[in-house]
């Protein structure tokens, strides 16, 4: 099914006691697209990613990734996916190489040694492959985490704050690499980020999340235009502070929500 979406989420809901973390979330991501999930702290970005990966069981709703029902058969899709998140670390006492080999084996990567060398070269981590992961700087750790996320050449890549601890130069290089990877492989990327420049540069489409619901959706250019702003940073601030043209239009029911 080449035309079916890579990710399809319908009426997704997650409730913790009385707290509604994600509320009736519905969206699709076409194959080969880069979707940004934007929202303030607690908007439901990480919760959504965790449910897409099967780390968290939804209260209600359906999730399909690569045509696989993730609530019933997630092991059929997981070898073709991967992720990176600042909330999860790699074993600190293993070397970078051992971590990549470990995860390469879990994902059934063929010609693993060659793949490790290749990804190390591409991620510019070859110089410290044999150093314990715990001895790396925050930026180096982030590059290793992305290398782990790419070790199995995933068709669907979920990235939570992928450049959060990188200096501007390395972050810029990382964005270029992710764009290049997406072009080369046709992978679908779902990206949760607070970096609006990153979102503008990488994403074909953006979902603005607020209190677990879709606040607005469109390409970065469409959203900037719709909100009458200069860039995504201003769009985000409008949403967060409940002000501006975009919100006025939303209140009048001119937008989809």
């Amino acid at each position, binding site marked *: 099914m080449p035309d079916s979406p890579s990710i399809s989420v319908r009426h997704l809901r*997650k409730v913790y006691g009385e707290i509604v973390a994600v509320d009736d979330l519905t969206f699709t991501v076409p194959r080969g697209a880069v979707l940004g999930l934007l929202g303030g702290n607690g908007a439901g970005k990480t919760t959504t990613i965790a449910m897409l990966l099967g780390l*968290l069981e939804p209260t209600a709703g359906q999730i399909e990734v690569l045509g696989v029902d993730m609530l019933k058969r997630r092991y059929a899709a997981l070898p073709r996916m991967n992720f990176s998140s600042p909330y999860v670390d790699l074993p600190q006492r293993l070397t970078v190489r051992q971590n990549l080999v470990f995860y390469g084996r*879990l994902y059934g990567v063929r010609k693993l040694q060659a793949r490790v060398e290749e990804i190390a070269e591409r991620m510019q981590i070859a110089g410290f492959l044999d150093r314990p992961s715990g001895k790396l700087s925050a930026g180096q750790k982030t590059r290793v985490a992305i290398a782990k996320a790419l070790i199995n050449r995933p068709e669907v890549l979920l990235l939570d704050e992928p450049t959060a601890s990188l200096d501007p130069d390395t972050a810029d290089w990382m964005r270029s690499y992710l764009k290049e990877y997406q072009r080369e492989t046709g992978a679908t990327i779902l990206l949760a980020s607070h970096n609006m420049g990153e979102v503008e540069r990488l994403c074909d489409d953006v979902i603005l999340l607020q209190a677990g619901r879709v606040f607005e959706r469109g390409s970065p250019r469409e959203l900037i235009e719709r909100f009458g702003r200069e860039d995504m940073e201003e769009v985000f601030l409008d949403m967060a502070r409940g002000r501006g043209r975009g919100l006025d239009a939303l209140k009048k029911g001119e937008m989809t929500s």
Partner: protein
Amino acid sequence: MSGSIERIHALVMRHVWIWRSSVMRLVDSIYWPAVQMVMWGFLTQYLLPQATFIAQAAGVLLSGLLLWEVVVRGNLSLSIAFLEEMWSRNLGHLFVSPIRSWEMAAGIIIAALLRTLMGMIPVSLMAWAFFGYSIYDLGLPLVAFFAILQMFSWSIGLAMSGMIMRVGQSAESFAWAAVFILMPVSGVYYPVSVLPQWLQTIAWALPTAYVFEGMRAIMTDKIVHWDLLGIAFGLSAVYLVVGFQIFQWFFRASRRAGTLLGQGE
């Protein structure tokens, strides 16, 4: 199936690499059993001329200790193998990889078995060197005792690991101590018959009681009760299945509660 073997192998090697990078992580596997062995060894020497029972079976206390340590070390080794993933905040990566729960359980069981052997073999040799006592004199039944006790200890370790996964690392100390509640009813150093009737009922529901009674029967009467060992093996298999089901139950509860993503020290 080859994918499962590859993933289990990966998980075992991950622990082997950690041991190689930090030998201190293995020291406690030898240290505590060695200290206990020395203490019980001297106690045996002291009691030898005074107690008929000890005189008849000189190694009965040391055998009890070493076999009980198989339970304790098995449980601790499995719990530590699982906790390694929590301490390194790695559970999230593991549970979104293609590794299945049973493969993960198999991987940490094999790692735990290796760790237990690395601790217990040197200590058993030390008992022979210091006190002239060889547990290997128990012969073939020793293999059965070891297998039964290991399976039982893994069942406790799996259940405790599941609980820590769900509750968090505040439950760690309970996981360390849980196995000791079974010691008084396992008949490690005394026959089950000395227990009150109601405790005997509990004791015979545990595979450990059969093992320690079987051990004493070999040492004092030179009899191997294979039928009782068969019951103990069956009980251990049941406990292992139950332990894994408890682990699975806590895993599902953790997925509902959202505690898998940010666990760690």
